[in-house]
């Protein structure tokens, strides 16, 4: 449900969807910011580092690099629309404490004697064999995490958000309405309790790989951890993302560009005809080589 408000500059009625906290007036382009006090007010805003033209170029390059993209899309070039959106993220500073169990393998070498036949005679030789000795082990591990991000927008899945990261929160500025002006900014649609569950899970997973790297043995396997996360600070941050959209065969297509790093994220359709042709070409080439090899062998065999 959108809310109708009056633009204080030109008097036009402006529709502002409830998840928008800023937009431009459709009639006079005056930057509008929702001045309502909200309890989910962002703490930090990171400005757009990448201008629109650069984002458009990145998108174009990304599409050129895709082999199996339908040609229609490839030649279409520019997206039909390219919007800058300040996307809400929950940012966690946290301390993780883990108890772990793991199998740790330490390698050692032994000399083995073996017999072999050389020139028709049986001889005894030695060789070095590397063995791994496995131990059950357990212990604890600690870590601190700064600015671990979880998407606060239903429009941006956590998987896409993780691909878009990293963002440099060092470039973020304290919230001020001025920073929102002229941009589309969203209020969080993922509540903090839900985001907290996602953060707990992601950090516990991070700890699992951190512990695997931390273990001093030559090999490790079966690392299991129980991790408790203590959040030391939770911030709501607005991060800059360029969103490019197309329509292709009636389906909406969407690519995202991290407006700090230029990283491009999103699924593109695959031209299955192109894939089929490529596979066939590959088969013909390998088949050709195989035939040639058989021919050569046959000729050599006949000589």
């Amino acid at each position, binding site marked *: 449900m959108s809310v109708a408000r009056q633009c204080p500059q030109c008097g036009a009625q402006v529709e502002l969807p409830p998840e928008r906290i800023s937009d431009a007036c459709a009639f006079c382009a005056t930057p509008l910011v929702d*001045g309502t006090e909200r309890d989910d007010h962002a703490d930090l805003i990171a400005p757009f580092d990448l*201008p629109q033209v650069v984002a458009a170029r990145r998108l174009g390059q990304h599409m050129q690099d895709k082999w199996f993209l339908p040609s229609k899309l490839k030649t279409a070039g520019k997206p039909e629309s390219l919007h800058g959106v300040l996307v809400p993220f929950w940012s966690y500073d946290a301390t993780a404490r883990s108890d772990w169990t793991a199998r*740790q393998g330490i390698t050692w070498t032994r000399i083995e004697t073996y017999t072999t036949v050389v020139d028709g005679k049986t001889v005894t030789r030695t060789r070095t064999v590397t063995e791994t000795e496995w131990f059950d082990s357990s*212990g*604890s591990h600690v870590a601190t995490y700064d600015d671990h991000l979880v998407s606060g927008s239903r429009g941006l899945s956590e998987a896409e958000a993780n691909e878009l990261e990293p963002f440099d929160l060092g470039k973020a*500025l304290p919230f001020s309405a*001025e*920073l929102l002006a002229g941009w589309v900014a969203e209020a969080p649609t993922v509540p903090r309790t839900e985001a907290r569950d996602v953060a707990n899970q992601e950090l516990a997973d991070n700890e699992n790989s951190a512990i695997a790297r931390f273990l001093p043995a030559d090999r490790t396997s079966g690392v299991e951890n129980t991790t408790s996360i203590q959040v030391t600070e939770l911030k709501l941050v607005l991060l800059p993302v360029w969103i490019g959209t197309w329509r292709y065969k009636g389906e909406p297509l969407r690519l995202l560009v991290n407006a700090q790093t230029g990283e491009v994220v999103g699924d593109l359709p695959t031209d299955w005809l192109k894939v089929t042709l490529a596979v066939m070409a590959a088969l013909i080439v390998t088949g050709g080589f195989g035939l040639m090899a058989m021919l050569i062998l046959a000729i050599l065999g006949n000589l």
Partner: protein
Amino acid sequence: MGALVTITCASCGGSVAMEAGRRRPACLFCGAETLMEDDRAEQIEAADTYVPFDQSEAQARAVFKEWASKKFWAPSEIRGATLGLNGLLLPAWTWSGTVETHWAALIRARTQSGKRPTSGSESWAVDGVLVPASRSLTRAELAEISPFQSAVEPFDAEEADLPFELGQLTRTAARAAGTRAMRELHAARLEDDVSAVRLSTSCLFHDLEGTPVLLPIWIGAYRVGDKPYRVVLNGQTGAITGTAPVSWVKIAIAVGIGAAIMCAGLMFFGVGALILGQ
């Protein structure tokens, strides 16, 4: 009904626009950008205490002479080298706190590989961990001439009669360097305690306190041949560290003597064996 506001320019009252790709919004009418002050840049804290010099220049020279005379492998010119010596107060941060280290190690054991894994955790309270805040001094140099006694005196830049350098580390950067140093110190201690063959540590830091301080340092430069070398002295205790040239002639002679002794020994045994054999 929520209020909808436009942003108004502080200088002319016009509307403010944020053009795509701009870091700051600019006024639509006058182009002014003076809407926000960017005060995020972290200020560098100046030290307000210093450790006074206890070593005079003459004492520092004597320490250098003594140090140089003990450099066995250095060419003898080092004893006659003229030392350019500068005494100055150099900025550093001193950190205290508790390191909570959770570790995993491999230790010697009667297993087939001769090792087995072990783990543990320990909290350790440290203080006086120094990290340099200037490029004139490396952390290794500072560690070698540490410690300084914490007898500090108030420092007033206006009235300082000694040359001093300004710090180049913000509290955040100094904190990172301080915790890194604490982690390394604790790891070295644990490595000794458990006789680790290999050790991994993960750390948390509690009750961290950091203070910028100025340390009394003599920095000496000398030349042997046309190459410059450098020594650094603790201006309070006289501890010294530095680089010295190595004389290849001396090493060659030593190797020669060693070889001669071995030859003589072999000959002696050979002759002895011959005599015994007869």
